[in-house]
C-alpha cells in the first residue's frame, strides 16, 4: 500500500445542504483512494455559477492491487 497526498477542488452546489457535505466529499475522495486524513482548506464563492468551490487536502491510502490511481490534473 502507498500513502499519497493530493489536493482537489470540488463543486459545492447551493442546493447541497451543509448537513450532507461530509458524505458528498467522502464519496468524491473514494474515487481516488481511501481517505485517511482530510480537511476542507478553502471555500470560494462563484455566485454566477450558483456554486461554491471547496478545496480539499487529503492523504489517501492507495492499495495498488485495487488499481485505483490519481488523476494528476486534479492536484
Amino acid at each position, binding site marked *: 500500500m502507498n*500513502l*499519497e497526498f493530493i489536493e482537489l477542488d470540488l463543486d459545492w452546489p447551493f442546493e447541497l445542504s*451543509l448537513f450532507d457535505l461530509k458524505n458528498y466529499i467522502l464519496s468524491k475522495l473514494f474515487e481516488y483512494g481511501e481517505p485517511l486524513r482530510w*480537511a476542507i*482548506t478553502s471555500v470560494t*464563492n462563484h455566485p454566477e455559477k450558483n456554486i461554491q468551490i471547496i478545496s480539499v487536502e487529503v492523504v489517501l491510502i492507495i492499495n495498488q492491487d485495487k488499481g485505483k490511481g490519481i488523476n494528476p490534473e486534479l492536484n
Partner: protein
Amino acid sequence: MTNAEPLPTLLIIPTGIGCNVGGYAGDAIPAARLLASASGCLITHPNVMNGGSLYWPDNCIQYVEGYSLNLFASGEVFLKPVRQQKVGLLLDAGLESDLKKRHLQVADGCVASLGLDIGPVMTTEKAIQINLKKGMSGSSWGNIEEPDVLLRAAEKLKQAGATAIAVVTRFPDESDELETKLYRQGHGVDIIAGVEAVISHFLVKHLLIPCAHAPGLAPLPIDYDLDPRTSGEEIGYTFLQSVLVGLSRAPDLIYKSEMKAKENTLFQVNTLLSNRDLGAVVVPQGALGGEAVLSCIERFIPLIIVSNQGVLNVSSTKMRLDSLSGNRDKNILYAENYIEAAGLITALRHAINVKSLRRPIDCLKQLNDE
C-alpha cells in the same frame, strides 16, 4: 440528572494549521485545562495536549487521537475510560543509536519516575522514511514511504500485549530552515505536525487502539528569540514524554459493531462515552472544514466557534453556518477566546440561557403576533 453533572465537550484545534493558540508546543494545554474544569469532561487530541517535554495529566481530559476522534464524532466508536494503558513503544529503524537510546531512556524514566506501564519495545525492520509536504493552504501534511513496515511492527506490539502505541520516527533534519525559524519565533506553521497526524491516523485506522507520535529530531542550536509557545520542544532531547503520559490514560476505542456483539450491552453503554453524550464542540473560527466538526454539525451538537487565527479561512460564513435558520442556528455560539468559551460551556452545563447573559435582551414574542 442534576445541572452540575459533566457536560462532555469536544475541543478541536487542528494540527498543522498554525493556530495562535494550539499551533505550537502544547500551548493549548491551559485552554484545555480551563475547558475541562468548566465541562467536567473534555475530549481532545494529542495536538492540544502534547507539549514536547511538557504535559499535564488531568482526570477530566480524555486523550483521543484524531482518526479515532473522527470516528467518535460520527458515532462509529465509543470511548471507554481506563485506569491505565500498557503503552508499547515503536521505534523507527531510521533513528541513530544515540537518538534511539535517548528515547529508551525517556521511556525508562516514565516507568521509574511516573509509574507508567510501558512496553514492549519494537524497532521497525527498516527506516520508514518521512516526506514532509505543505498544502496550497499553508497547512502542513506529508506521507511515509514504508507504511507496511510501520504497520507490521505495530501489529507485533499489539500481539505482544500493548494496548496503546507510542511511535517515534526519524524526521528529516534538512526541513525548510526558514519555516523552522519562523515556527520557533511564533510566526509559522509546525511543518512536521501534519505528517505526525498522518502516522497516528494510519496506525489507529488499522489497529483501533490509541496511538500517538513523537518526532525523532537532532537538537537545534539555541534561538535567542524563541517564542514561549515553542519552548516545550526546546528543553529536552525528545518529545516522547508528553506522548507517553497522554497515552497512558487514553480511553479504549470500542467499535459500535463490537458493542452489539458483546453481552451486558446496557451496562457498557452506561460506562462508555458516545457522541450522543456530547454537550458542545469547541473549534477555531476558520477551521470548520474538518471531518469531526462536520459530523458534529450533522448531529446538531452545540458548536462554540472561537476566534483563534490560523492559516485557514474556512469560516462560519463560508460554510453557510451563518445562514442557518430556525432552531439550527441556536446551536451555534461564538467566543472571542477560550476564556469566553469556558463561560459558554459553564452556562450550557448549568442550564443558564446564554441569551440571558447578553445585552441588549429582547422581549419575548408571542407566536400569534407573527
